[in-house]
């Protein structure tokens, strides 16, 4: 009983404490860069699409709201032919970003993407792709992985020797 009364008293005291509410949108809150909201596809430092259409984000997505189709250019570079996120299903959990091996898919602090029409919540690649590198400025997957693409032949990735001449028997 006493504890109930004490609670009443404590709560009553809060009449004189300041409200914690931030009056969005009059006052914009500070959201750190790692805040999880709208998803974007970024580009590598060379300005090329980072996404290699590996499908790991789609596999990681707990609500299965990512779908994409792989294609590749003449030089063997993989990229998504189309990339679709159904934001009306997205729970901004960020697992896609964690799954992404190329830092392509990133969550941004921009959370203001409500729509009156639910159909407009479906974002295609053109809507997702931004022109910058996002949070990770230097990473370039193809400079590290051994697959040859335009402008980077075999042996030019990180820690790679020049290709072996298989006709040579020299050690």
């Amino acid at each position, binding site marked *: 009983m006493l504890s109930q009364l004490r609670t*009443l008293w*404590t*709560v*009553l005291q*809060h*009449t004189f404490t*300041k*409200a*914690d*509410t931030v009056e969005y949108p009059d006052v914009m809150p500070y959201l750190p860069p790692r805040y999880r909201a709208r998803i974007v596809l970024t580009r590598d430092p060379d300005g090329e699409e980072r996404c290699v259409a590996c499908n790991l984000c789609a596999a990681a997505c707990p609500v299965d709201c990512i779908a994409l189709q792989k294609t590749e250019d003449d030089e063997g570079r993989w990229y998504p032919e189309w990339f679709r996120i159904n934001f009306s299903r997205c729970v901004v959990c960020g697992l896609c970003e964690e799954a992404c091996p190329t830092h392509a898919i990133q969550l941004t602090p921009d959370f203001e993407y409500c729509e009156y029409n639910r159909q407009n919540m479906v974002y295609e690649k053109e809507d997702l792709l931004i022109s910058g590198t996002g949070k990770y400025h230097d990473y370039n997957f193809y400079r590290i992985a051994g697959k040859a693409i335009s402008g980077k032949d075999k042996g030019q990735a990180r820690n790679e020797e020049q290709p072996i001449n298989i006709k040579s028997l020299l050690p």
Partner: protein
Amino acid sequence: MNTAILIATVLICLLSLAALLIWLERRLLGIWQDRLGPNRVGFLGLGQVVADMIKIFTKEDWIPPFADKGIFILAPTIVVIAMLMAFAVVPFAPDTSISNLNIGLLFFLAMSSLAAYSVMLGGYASNNKYALLGSLRAAAQTVSYEVFMGLSLMGVVLLTGSFNMSDIVLAQKEHGWFVFSQFVGFIVFLVAGIAESHRLPFDLPEAEHEIVAGFHTEYSGMKFGLFFIGEYLGVALISAVITTLFFGGWLGPEFMPPLFWFCLKTFIFICFFVLLRAAVPRPRYDQLMMFGWKVMLPISLLNLLITAALTLARAS
């Protein structure tokens, strides 16, 4: 003619008060929970009341196909009517009450018990297991708490020697506020009042984490709105009656009119109701019943006994 004007005034005031209470409650809850509450619509968010009213009037009024249609519609009206009727005996100021009944207090008790039908019929007519559970809870709760609600007031009646509400107020001019002489009666009535109006912490008939929304699960639109208004009217009524019976009604210093004092005291109690909601958690249902029968009933009986004994002693 005067009575007609008074009735109209009270009716309008009460109904707008009920609506305003929604806003008030949300603001107060906000303040006590370190939030702001509704503040975007109009001055201090007062426009929210209007917005809510527009919303609730224009909402789809859905009657489930499996419901007992007649009773389903009737149920929410009972609570509002009963609460408004009860206000008839409340004296707002000297000689200002709709009906200065000699059995005013009994009339109040009768009316507030009638409200129980509203809940029971609503739950029954919904033909929904959650609604039925809620109404059963409400019935049991009302029956249990009504017993000592009446008993707790008998002390006041003994001291005054009248069931007339105005007499009771006037009696406090001589005796001082009954809250001092009938403190136990006040506490018991307060608890019973909360339970009668199904307010937190005794809102088990609509405990949403257990039985969805209790008796009004199937209600929507204005019919739900009537239940809602009924609840706030109940809050206002209990506050007004507490003020009248224990805090000297309209009595107060001369520099303000009596109506002001009455309203101020009632307002404070309404705020207290909100504070309860902000602070106190809901008990379990068995705890509620046990508290009623094993604690409150003996206390109120004891209180009545002692009051009667003292009154007799003084009289002799």
